[in-house]
């Protein structure tokens, strides 16, 4: 039996999209299976590890805990939306330089958490960085290089939104 699901529309990385899926389908699965944006990862499926973190209407959410119907009319940003016109976002540049990514599986979620932190607080103290990333588990780095990446990104320029000015400043 084929059910025709009513459309759910939202903005993904600046582009509008429409999906016809069960409304309780996890946003994570819609991103990965229906929109083929596999940069967002599943680590635990219960909101503990933060690997599936995306930004939704300016909030950081665990996409494994969000039914897609809640994304109706929302603006969703995933890791695929960080780099612009082939240029890495300052936080991505900083991760590359400082060794913020090792195995890379927590990285997309960690980048979204870091981008969210810097959007809210362009020059965070180390304690604020720790708190801002506490919902994202990394098993490889021990977090030191990730903290350094955030500090470097904050020094480079306010990391969000990405302006032409920010890119020139780098």
């Amino acid at each position, binding site marked *: 039996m084929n059910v025709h699901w009513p459309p759910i529309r939202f903005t993904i990385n600046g582009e509008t999209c429409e999906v016809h899926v069960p409304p309780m389908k996890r946003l994570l699965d819609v991103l990965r299976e229906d929109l083929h944006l*596999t*940069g967002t990862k599943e680590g635990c499926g*219960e909101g503990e590890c933060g690997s599936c973190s995306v930004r939704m209407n300016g909030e950081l959410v665990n996409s494994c805990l969000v039914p897609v119907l809640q994304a109706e009319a929302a603006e969703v940003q995933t890791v695929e939306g960080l780099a612009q016109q082939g240029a890495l976002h300052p936080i991505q540049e900083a991760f590359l330089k400082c*060794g913020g*990514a090792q195995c*890379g599986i*927590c990285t997309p979620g960690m980048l979204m958490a870091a981008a969210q932190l810097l959007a809210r607080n362009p020059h965070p103290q180390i304690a604020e960085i720790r708190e801002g*990333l*506490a919902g994202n588990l990394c098993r490889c780095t021990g977090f030191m290089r990730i903290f350094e990446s955030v500090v470097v990104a904050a020094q480079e320029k306010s990391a969000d939104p990405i302006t032409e000015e920010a890119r020139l400043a780098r």
Partner: protein
Amino acid sequence: MSTHATTRIVGAPVPRKEGVDKLVGRALYVDDLQREDAWYGATVRSSIPRGIIRSIAFDRAVDWSEFTIVTAKDVPGENQIHLIVADQPCLADGKVNHCEEPIVLLAHPDKHKVREAVSAVKIEYDPLPAIFSIEESERQDVIVWGADNLLKSFLLEKGDLDSAWADAAHIVEGEYRTGAQEHLYIENNGIIAEYDAERGVTVWGSLQCPYYVFKSLKSVFDLPEKKVRVIQTETGGAFGGKEDYPSTLACHAALLAMKSGHPVKMVYDRLEDLAATTKRHPSRVRHRTAVDANGKLLAMDINLATDGGAYSTLSSTVLSRATLHSTGPYLCPNVRVRSNAWATNMVPYGAFRGFGAPQAIFAMERHMDEIAAAIGMDPIEFRRRNFLHDGDMNATEQVMREPVILDQLLDRALKESDFHAKRARFAHENDTNPVKRGMGISAFYHGSGFTGSGEVVLNSLAGVDVTPEGKVRVLVSNTEFGQGTNTILTQVAAEALGIDYSAVSMAPADTNQVPNSGPTVASRTSMVVGRLIERASLQLIAMLRNSAGLGEKYTTEEFFAACERFRAAKGEVLSTCRYEPPPGIVWDDKKYHGEAYPAYAWAVYVAQVAVDTITYSAEVEEFWAVQEVGRVLHPVLAEGQIEGGIAQGIGYAVYEKVVWNSGRMANNQMTNYIMPTAEDVPPIHVFFEQIPFRYGAYGAKGIGELPHDGPAPAILNAIRNATGVPFNSIPLLPEDLFAGLAASRSIEEPAAL
């Protein structure tokens, strides 16, 4: 070799080879691969720890005609996962020996339906008595493996232990225990398999050792080598947890693929991964040590036991490394180490970063502090008096032929951490503060590469080739799972070839394309495999000079032009090398005597802790790690390795507890298996001393496992210093601190260190 041999690329912080792919979300992990025609697999597992399978029934409410069902009867070859000993069935056949043992496999086009169907398979058992601890296994009342439950044992002897006790001024005994630890890679285990009558079996997956998986598939499917192909996908953390388990999962997915006629994807969810896959071996180590009046070690009698779980997996080699690291980096004339790996009905334990060494070093380094306390000597001074030096012989009577700089590492660790001043200040402040602070230390070494004759047996083959498209490729089966394999091996090749870093890439980790350069384990990639790539690259340059007119000095462009001349004349541009042991390596596997490892990495770690005597939390406030790992190939990656290992070690010490319920993991969720978060990990200060090892790639020794060895004893020694109470078991959680501190208050106030 000088410490600062001039290199262009080795030692420089070049960008991680696959870094951009990981940062933009383009790197493809196994679950990211989508196949339109794929079915999904699931596993029906044992619900009891030991018993005879009486019946397997399928609930009539499910239309099983939609499913592919696989049992042991469907295995075309040998129903064994081939690792060291062939004792572990690919699928249980008639009996089960641990909870979560795989019995039935299901595949279906809908991944939700296949998961739901697992509970519709009803298995009835005749239970048999099961055992869950080292003590139950060594009593041998219930035999669950072989004739005596003994998976492996070793005896290591030096000097004359029995006559050494008479000269002792002090004899100190202690017992130390370590618990299971979960790897908690953030990417769960996963495999996609395909079967084709012509091409045989192909698997893609998250794994460390393509040729281990290859070996198991070959025997389970009874196929010739050319009909088995294993391809590693981007791997989201491993830490040893993807050394042996992927062999089982790959066989499962491939069995379903063969029977269903579809590619089959099996990606575990976190619950299944935690419950069913391997963990670090729990251990119990007993020390009896004789010390003379000057604080010199006279004799060490060590009895080491591990719980191996229901099947042997890698327990024998884990026990070997534990045995060889159990005496620490100390000189002692008389030693006996008796070690046993015991079978139980626990889920089989397996490889985990450090591979037995963290267990043995926890015991040794805690014991050093207890000896120091018993003889009234400062634990720093006691260690210093007993350190190995150049020319000394360790417990296997291996002469330390390379420089040993433990004193220098210790001095630096004390200075960087301001150890003595802080310890004195804390002792003063602790009198009036409910938060008790303390400083603790650990000193240790970690052998690089396979033990003894292991590297000779592996006989690794590695190389470089040059494609017609003008790309140098590193040909190895060693894999990247975060630790930096891709980056350091391409650095080594670019350095030795004298060309740009960007001109070198890794060939895919695909058994159809790369030779068997051994597994990616045992801190062997930098030192052993890196050296093979260095040699193969230098050999290629010699070939180009001899046959293709490459000059003494050349640009990257001139290098590739010479490669094309070589190709026109000889057909392919390929240079391979086989492992050759450093000269003078003699190892007696029967006596456990001789050169256990070609090189050791050395370290001294310091922990500063705060124990809150109101909340009973033990917080690591700061951590210092000083090590000598030979030449550092990449400063950023090397520091990242050390920091990550220390964070795991902190988890091992004071956060991570596997809760067992009759052989089943009770806390198989990230909600209640707790690893250190960004708010828990303290500032970690990393320092390297560099002494190039002449037989490692550009002087490199092993680095990956070392940092997991030292944190737990340093932290528990710091807690000892803070509270005056010896805690000899990890993990040490607040309830354990509460119990220990309460017990000590009811007896007496022991002397602080």
